[in-house]
């Protein structure tokens, strides 16, 4: 029993070393590819290496349920709306038609796009911060790195997916409204924003309520789907998924390291031994790991439980199918199959 356990711990140690030495770097490389791809799709010029000029795209905003009093054609150039042609049919006492335009001299900036681009660049910089031959010495170090990348990615994604709620006052006093020529009537305000893959134009009809305050009488919206926004969001999510998978693996070992302290079966401090092992053996323990897959398959049920209960991203990210991603990135599917060797860790803990 004792010997068996020792052997198990030995293998575990080797797997942990392998994880830090090989798997972490390969995941970081994959992340780099994903994020670089996201940057490429971003029409904002956020990469100095690439001096390509952003292309303007024309969109027709329509009401999702058919009939609409609003007609709007916008030209989106990178993070700003450089041209827009807005026609409103407002029915008060009598129906009036309002026509207004945005011209390239005074564009409407969509700050959400700029923000998301900045966060994306930030996370790419963090992922690239370590050379492929950098030796990560502890799991905690990697987890800290992954957490900070996750933070940036989350911010980038929510910049697009969750537009900030604005107060009526902010909307009314929005200086960008002046971009519309001829000026919109006083009781009409508009706002462009991004929500997930959609560019939305909201039109508010205002009135003065009984308390002599400005209030909203009606809100109309038209929208269109921007294809590259969708791609970028998918890549954001994919990157988060990759990080989560690696993090889960590391956490398993961290948990074990914490438990082994009082199990009294082994006096090993995983992190310390990891360092000495790394120096002595430069050959990856690939053989051992493939040998172990058989063993771990029997226990894969319990292992799955452990991995899936861990974090919330699993649910959020589930809508992306594997094939989607492969098409976008031309990635071999192997990345998604590679993790069964971890599962027997739970077995040991259960002992």
């Amino acid at each position, binding site marked *: 029993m004792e010997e068996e356990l020792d052997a198990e711990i030995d293998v575990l140690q080797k797997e942990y070393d392998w994880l830090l030495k090989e798997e972490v770097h390969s995941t970081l490389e994959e992340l780099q590819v994903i994020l670089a791809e996201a940057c490429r799709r971003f029409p904002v010029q956020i990469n100095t290496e690439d001096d390509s000029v952003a292309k303007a795209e024309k969109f027709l905003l329509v009401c999702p349920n058919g009939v609409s009093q609003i007609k709007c054609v916008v030209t989106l150039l990178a993070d700003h709306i450089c041209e827009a042609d807005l026609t409103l049919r407002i029915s008060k006492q009598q129906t009036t038609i309002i026509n207004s335009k945005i011209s390239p001299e005074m564009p409407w900036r969509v700050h959400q796009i700029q923000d998301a681009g*900045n966060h994306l660049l930030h996370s790419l910089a963090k992922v690239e911060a370590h050379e492929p031959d950098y030796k990560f010495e502890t799991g905690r170090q990697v987890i800290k790195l992954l957490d900070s990348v996750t933070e940036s990615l989350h911010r980038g994604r929510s910049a697009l997916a969750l537009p900030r709620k604005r107060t009526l006052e902010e909307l009314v006093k929005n200086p960008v409204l002046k971009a519309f020529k001829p000026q919109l009537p006083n009781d009409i305000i508009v706002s462009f924003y991004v929500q997930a893959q959609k560019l939305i134009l909201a039109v508010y009809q205002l009135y003065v309520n009984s308390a002599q305050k400005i209030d909203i009488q009606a809100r109309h919206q038209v929208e269109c789907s921007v294809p590259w926004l969708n791609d970028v969001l998918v890549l954001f999510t994919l990157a988060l998924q990759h990080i989560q998978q690696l993090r889960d693996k590391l956490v398993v070992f961290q948990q074990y390291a914490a438990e082994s302290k009082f199990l009294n079966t082994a006096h090993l401090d995983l992190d310390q031994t990891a360092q000495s092992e790394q120096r002595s053996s430069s050959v990856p323990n690939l053989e051992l790991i493939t040998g172990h897959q058989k063993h771990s398959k029997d226990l894969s049920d319990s292992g799955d439980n452990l991995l899936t209960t861990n974090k919330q991203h699993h649910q959020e990210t589930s809508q992306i199918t594997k094939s989607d991603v492969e098409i976008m990135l031309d990635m071999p599917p192997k990345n998604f199959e590679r993790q069964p060797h971890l599962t027997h860790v739970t077995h040991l803990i259960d002992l």
Partner: protein
Amino acid sequence: MLSSSLVVPMVMWGRNAPTHCICSILLTPDEKHIVTGSNDGQICVWDMAADWKVNPHQMLIGHNAAVTSLVLGSISQDKPYIVSSSDNGEMCLWDLRDGCCIESTKSTVVHTSIQPNQAIYEDESKQIRCLNAQTLKCCAYNQRTVLIVCSKYWQIYDTTWVMGKPSSGQSQAQLKMSSSPKGVYDAGDFSLLCSESSRRGERWCGGEFISIDRIVVWSTEGKGYLFKLPTNISDNEDYHKPGNPSSPRQVGPQAYTVLDVYMEKSLECSPSMIYFFGRRDREKKLILRGDSDGRVVVWSIPDVHDSKMKLVRQESFEKLPVVLPKCCTSLQEAWDRCTPATEGVIDQLNHTEERQLQITSSIYIPTQGRLVCGRDDGSIVITPATVSIVLQLLENGQMKGS
């Protein structure tokens, strides 16, 4: 308690110091207090004595997210105020004398850096390549060279006005960072004087001029490197040729000293470092570092004479003379120095006669005022929380759980 609305929070620290992964650091101008902000949102104030002994003094708890920047809140010496901002948009004004939070506010924007009293405006601009710029510093000694630290390299730019070019009346460089990765600079002539790449496995994260021709640059590994810039670079006419910003450099900058601290454990994330220039009784140039273990390291930058420096300038980085810190202390070390050891409530519950037990879970039930702890041998301890605290404070007695 007299007033029911008054809540006096109290912390029983226990034997282990709280985690304090430092992400921002500040030294007050009187050189008496080091202030560190952690990833968890706590701010720790350390006292620094004249003999470089550093001791944690108080913990300011108020932020709910990582402290992104710390800055002086008042220039006057008799008001030791600091302003802190956190990753979720909170900003607090603290009084260092008693640790009171004087004012706090929350905004939707997150401040990543705050500077006191600095008017910034743009006059002219020129784009230069500086991806991932971390720091931009203007040389205080000649006011015309600019140091830009990017993660993979640092560069020195010259902002001297070219002879004959119409000047707009500004003799001093004014700088402006734009929101894009590229910086926009006011400069008549923005020529690259010299540049140095980061070492393998390291990234630059900040730097500052320490004299007219010397700079200190620090890296993600928590080391500082002192560089001597090539002499007379700014007087060389060749550098001012327009349209030739990257003319080849004959002599590059040379490192002459490394600021290092030898530690067994490697850092978990890159530390926060600042340069401090004090003029209280005599000029003092310090580098402060706060790292992931809640450790504060202070180096004093040595004044290396030119004649001595020449001996080492040609050598590789590994052979550079190393300057060890004046002080290096962590929260845990301060905790360990405490006699008698600080005992927390949980510390009483986790040992039996035979061995140390691990507390694996805990919950406080406010309606009953009880603290419940689960231990790794399967036992659960329920203890009246206030009683155990009172016991701890008044009698230093041991609670025996069952």
